[in-house]
């Protein structure tokens, strides 16, 4: 736990805006000293979230422990017009929790308790700083679990999951965070407390619960989450099928869906991702394959076995070159371990990597992967592909070395090109990681000015003074105009990022 910050010295005080000085005085009266971090030396951990390329020290860090403290902090911030960026575990991949230089970084890390489990209503009330996996661990003995399982589930917090509407490998069958949350308790920018959703399956009025999911901390501060719990399936099997081409693996995904089976998870990795994962965690993936399909089936024991038999035959017909089944928990965990460790595994084979998150209609899978390969050659940067194949959610990992001049820019340019490719093929720039600061320019490509204006209107309906996470998720129309002009220019001159080499 960070210690109380010393009082700011005179020089620091002189640099502050009058509003900030007043805020600091007021917040010291309202919150205990050990919830306020003023000393920049203690702020390093808050400079960045999972998008480590973007770093920014906040003006002030608050670590409130009670809802009343959050309310007080917000009331004061609202009164003084000071920006507030909420932060959970800081594992987000789009810079959504990147601090504001003149603002407060509001960490919900101390809201880390599971408050209640209701076995009759199959729900649990948890604080936003509780990690995703710990919910499942808490109810495992009762035969229950919380379904959404982002790969970072050991560290990511449920509040952050709500803010990003996180998915995971099981959302093909069990849905995203929005499908698995019943109710939220929030603090408004003005410091009021309110609830959306209900302990029932719906609530009166507008579906604000859905609107708040994926809103990236722009609309309110989540201080309590009621999640749905599910009974553990009677039987689970995982199979792994190897293919000698990525497009053949992609076609087999469509074939599984056409079979009328919705697997619990359906993931794909290309050769580079497989090699990296195998080198990292040694799970026994077939290294000869150009692409691997990982498929999990769950349900009643006999049902799972009959589906498995059907899919084994189907995979053979689709040209699978290898097929391996994992039945026991330890065997299954091992197969998944390689997939879930794919990001850090790729991190070991390159000094830096940049993870993209576009989603496309599944039918475009083969064509989009071919184009990503072409872009990879053109930008001279390797790309490993890991994806939630069942959902068409791609995670191309762009490998680069930030210490080589220009490579970071080139990686970003390649990433932008991939996102625009996704839009062109009828998809979206982000399936589950959020827009944050990272993909804000691509929002200009995906949405019209009128649609962006409506997003700003929605933001204003919740946060009239605009103090919550300003500058994230939705670009200003001015920014889009500038981006559009630059973009045309970049289109005329082929890949200006390459010229420096």
């Amino acid at each position: 736990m960070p210690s109380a910050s010393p009082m700011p010295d005179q020089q620091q005080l002189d640099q502050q805006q009058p509003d900030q000085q007043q805020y600091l005085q007021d917040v010291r009266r309202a919150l205990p000293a050990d919830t306020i971090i003023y000393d920049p030396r203690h702020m390093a951990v808050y400079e960045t979230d999972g998008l480590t390329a973007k770093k920014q020290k906040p003006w002030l860090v608050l670590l409130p422990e009670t809802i009343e403290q959050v309310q007080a902090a917000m009331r004061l911030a609202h009164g003084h017009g000071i920006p507030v960026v909420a932060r959970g575990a800081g594992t987000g991949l789009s810079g959504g929790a990147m601090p504001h230089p003149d603002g407060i970084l509001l960490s919900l890390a101390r809201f880390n308790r599971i408050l209640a489990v209701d076995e009759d209503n199959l729900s649990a009330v948890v604080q936003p700083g509780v990690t995703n996996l710990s919910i499942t661990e808490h109810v495992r003995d009762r035969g229950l679990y919380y379904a959404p399982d982002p790969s970072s589930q050991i560290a990511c917090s449920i509040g952050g999951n709500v803010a990003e509407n996180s998915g995971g490998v099981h959302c093909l069958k069990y849905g995203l965070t929005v499908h698995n949350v019943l109710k939220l308790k929030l603090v408004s920018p003005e410091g009021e407390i309110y609830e959306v959703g209900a302990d029932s399956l719906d609530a009166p009025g507008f579906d604000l619960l859905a609107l708040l999911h994926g809103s990236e901390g722009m609309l309110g501060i989540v201080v309590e989450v009621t999640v749905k719990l599910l009974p553990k399936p009677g039987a689970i099997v995982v199979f792994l099928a190897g293919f000698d081409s990525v497009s053949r693996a992609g076609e087999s995904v469509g074939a599984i869906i056409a079979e009328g089976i919705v697997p619990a998870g359906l993931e794909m990795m290309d050769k580079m991702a497989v090699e990296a994962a195998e080198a990292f965690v040694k799970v026994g993936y077939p290294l000869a394959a150009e692409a691997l399909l990982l498929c999990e089936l769950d349900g009643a024991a006999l049902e799972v076995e009959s589906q498995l038999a059907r899919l084994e035959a189907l995979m053979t017909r689709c040209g699978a070159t290898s097929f391996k089944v994992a039945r026991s928990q330890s065997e299954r965990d091992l197969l998944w371990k390689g997939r879930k460790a794919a990001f850090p595994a790729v991190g070991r084979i390159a000094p830096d990597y940049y993870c993209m998150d576009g989603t496309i209609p599944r039918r475009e899978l083969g064509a989009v992967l071919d184009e990503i390969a072409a872009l990879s050659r053109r930008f001279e940067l390797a790309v490993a592909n890991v994806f939630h194949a069942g959902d068409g959610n791609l995670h191309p990992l762009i490998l680069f070395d930030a210490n080589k001049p220009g490579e970071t820019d080139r990686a970003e340019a390649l990433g932008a090109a991939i996102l625009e490719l996704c839009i062109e093929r009828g998809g979206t720039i982000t399936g589950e990681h959020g827009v944050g600061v990272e993909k804000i320019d691509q929002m200009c490509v995906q949405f019209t000015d009128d649609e962006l204006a409506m997003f700003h209107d929605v933001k204003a309906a919740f946060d009239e003074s605009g103090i919550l996470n300003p500058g994230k998720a939705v670009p200003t129309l001015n920014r889009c105009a500038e981006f559009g002009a630059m973009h045309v220019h970049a289109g005329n001159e082929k890949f200006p990022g390459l010229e420096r080499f």
Partner: protein
Amino acid sequence: MSDQTDALVAGVKRAFAAKRRLSIVAGATRDFLGYPMNDEPLNVASHRGIISYEPQELVVRVRAGTPLCELEETLADAGQMLAFEPPRMGAASTIGGCVATGLSGPRRAYAGSVRDFMLGATIIDGQGRCLSFGGQVMKNVAGYDVSRLMAGAMGTLGVILDVSFKVLPMPAREVTIVRTAPLADAVGHWRDAARRFLPVTATAWTGGRSYVRLAGDGAAIDEGVDAIEGDVTTDGPWDLVRDQRHPAVVGAEHLWRLSVAKNDVDPLSVLVEWGGAQCWRTDGADPRASLESGHATRFRGESDAERFQPLAPVVQRLHQRLKDKFDPARILNAGRMYPDL
């Protein structure tokens, strides 16, 4: 099969310029929900047709005026369905009304609601701007989820032009297990079943009988039949319950829908669904003030009385502000859901 976007946009623009209120209509089969509307009709019924449907993608995009039964037929031909089982209030029921009223059927507690299966929507806002949110892909967190906000908004935030849904394969087989049981026992049985991983896709209690529907392939159903006590029948009450044609509710002068926590079932209910989370009362008393959880909606009776649960003050303010943004002149279905909205 007709795209009426331009005409509908022009209609809203004219109304916006003249500050003239519009009542959005299509099949007019769901007028029972919300307050009656008598403003100039904006008819979306001719804006119909399936825009795209690829069964392998599990996605269908459909215009709002498309009859629900037409869409369901097309999906069934490919062995797929709208998994939230929207109530069909008659042959004229449209997709737009289905989304605007936000009603889901027996499968809701086990598969999800209409908004859970929405992937995107195109709307006309109160200024006549045509806007698209979400898309035709399974996962999409770019921008606020405005499309799901349309589900249950009763047309007060925009004219729905088209909606994209995730669809699911139809189960290979369905059976129903029926047993005689008082309501409390039935809810207890459902609760026990919900704690186990069984292929339950619907539950209902009415007239002293508990019904549980199982769906899946043969093996899954066999396992469910072994686990749940009662007689197996292929003749469950599901269509009647789904379409609000069940004898328990069909002729009642008063009808309230209670949406409650599963452990807060109203003992005065004549029909209970969703594992206990959806209860129907016909006794005429207003249950809203006495609810321990959830909310209640008047479906029938006393047309000038209040019909929805009052909103908490902060939530009410958010409704007002959203309405001001989506429909600044307050011309779209004004007063349909709440008198001041």
